[in-house]
């Protein structure tokens, strides 16, 4: 294995030279806390599923890493190493204008995913990479699913809002409003309105929220 660049909760990410290329090995670890049957089933399901969803995202016009190889036995996906910075690392330090512009673009990309029936499932700012050329690449489709349900779309964006509120609390509202603006450009007024209402409903449903 190459250099461990991130030990995530779900998988480890290694940077490696492979066939003359700089690549990422995303290896799902067996989780010792889970019974083997459950663990293996989850590992295979997620290792198979992720590259399929990454490909679907490309069809939707959303930049994602190139997949080179999928090794189910080792629960490993070999994919392109995307140069750049996580949005999480830079968002708080950007001038307000740039931050809004970036968030609007993120919103457009989420809109493109949703329009094609893709729910990312883990829309945090650590799963979005800004490349030196200014492109935003979405990574980690490990929890993604196919759905055009309002509910799924609402939960996806609700998670995004929650991620912003916990990691970028100072600018959470500004950022989320920009995300919604971008989303609206792709999805149109009507669906966006429905999704926003759904998010409100989800937040009220969340055990102890004061209706806002």
């Amino acid at each position, binding site marked *: 294995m190459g250099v461990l660049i991130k*030990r*995530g909760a779900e998988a480890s990410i290694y940077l490696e030279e492979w066939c003359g290329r700089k690549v990422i090995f995303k290896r799902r670890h067996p*989780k010792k*806390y889970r019974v083997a049957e*459950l663990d293996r089933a989850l590992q295979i399901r997620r290792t198979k599923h992720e590259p399929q969803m990454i490909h679907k995202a490309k069809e939707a016009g959303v930049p994602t890493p190139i997949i080179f190889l999928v090794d189910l036995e080792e629960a490993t996906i070999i994919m392109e190493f995307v140069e750049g910075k996580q949005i999480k690392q830079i968002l708080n330090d950007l001038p307000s204008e740039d931050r809004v512009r970036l968030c609007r673009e993120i919103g457009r990309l989420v809109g493109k995913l949703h329009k094609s029936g893709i729910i990312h*499932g883990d829309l945090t700012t650590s799963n979005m990479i800004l490349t030196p050329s200014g492109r935003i690449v979405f990574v980690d489709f490990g929890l993604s699913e196919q759905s055009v349900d309002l509910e799924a779309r609402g939960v996806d964006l609700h998670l995004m809002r*929650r991620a912003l509120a916990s990691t970028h609390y100072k600018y959470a509202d500004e950022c989320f409003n920009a995300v919604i603006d971008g989303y609206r450009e792709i999805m149109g007024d009507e669906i966006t309105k429905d999704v926003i209402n759904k998010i409100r409903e*989800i937040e009220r449903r969340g055990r102890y*929220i*004061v209706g806002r």
Partner: protein
Amino acid sequence: MRGLEGYCLGIESTADDFGVGIASFDGEILANVNDVYVPERGGIHPREASRHHTIVAGRVIAEALNRAGLKPREISVIAFSQGPGLGPCLRVGATAARALAAYLNKPLVGVNHCVAHIEIGKMVSGARDPVTLYVSGGNTIVAAFEARRYRVFGETLDIAVGNCLDVFAREAGLRPRADKPLGAIVEELASRGKSFIQLPYTVKGMDLSFSGLLTAAINLLREGKYPLEDICFSFQETAFSMLTEVTERALAHTEKPEVLLTGGVAANKRLQDMLRVMCEEHGARFCVVPKEYATDNGAMIAWTGVLCYKHGLTIPIERSHVKLKWRLDEVEVPWVEQ
């Protein structure tokens, strides 16, 4: 900081427990008395639970004072659980607290129940800056401190895991005993389970959903094809793996050094084991709150009352209404340092 020596009496009554605790300002728990309402059948009936609280309130308060060896006049602050919880139950504790504060002419503090679980957990376990997994009949929350508040990183999108366990257990025809809640009975059955049956495993980012798991497990019960032990085992393994996975995600995301497990479901040994194994892999310290302070209790309200009082967070009686849906992340906790 006022720094004066004193004692805080805290009243907890968010759900089925009526608890009274007394904490000294320097963090000693002098009393922790509890009386639980046990329904004849089904879950907690809010009206019946509040009736229970009304009946036992006076006796539990007197017993707490007695155990602490204090006279009512020696109490410096009255704290109560102001929310979140069941309205009728919360109002009994609030009414008792207001009466005491008015009669004794002492300041009143309204404590957030979820904050109290975290604070008492930190105090008794020595955790300083943990990712907290708070699992009970009414709550399933993964939280950690970030900029003046305990931020909610993940929570259930539908029912709480404790509620999920209880409903499943009742559907399986199990009955709680005074010494053994339903969760403990399921745990015992699960420990004898052998084959794992795949059930819906629903993690969305750091949020969880238990309703699909509950429905599928109840369907298995009705099918009658599998031994109850195997269903309990698979049900528990699935639910707890989900909890451990989201806690792990929060730990990786926040890079905190500790995990704190609290709430009524924290007593489950299998859940403890899973989290311990996960923490070892991440080099994080695992802390579990002892049962007395993990389930709903008055001591946690008293201790959090001390922290609030020291930071001037008292409330006048006329603004002490209960807050049924008071979220953990709405509360500023000025006593925690970044």
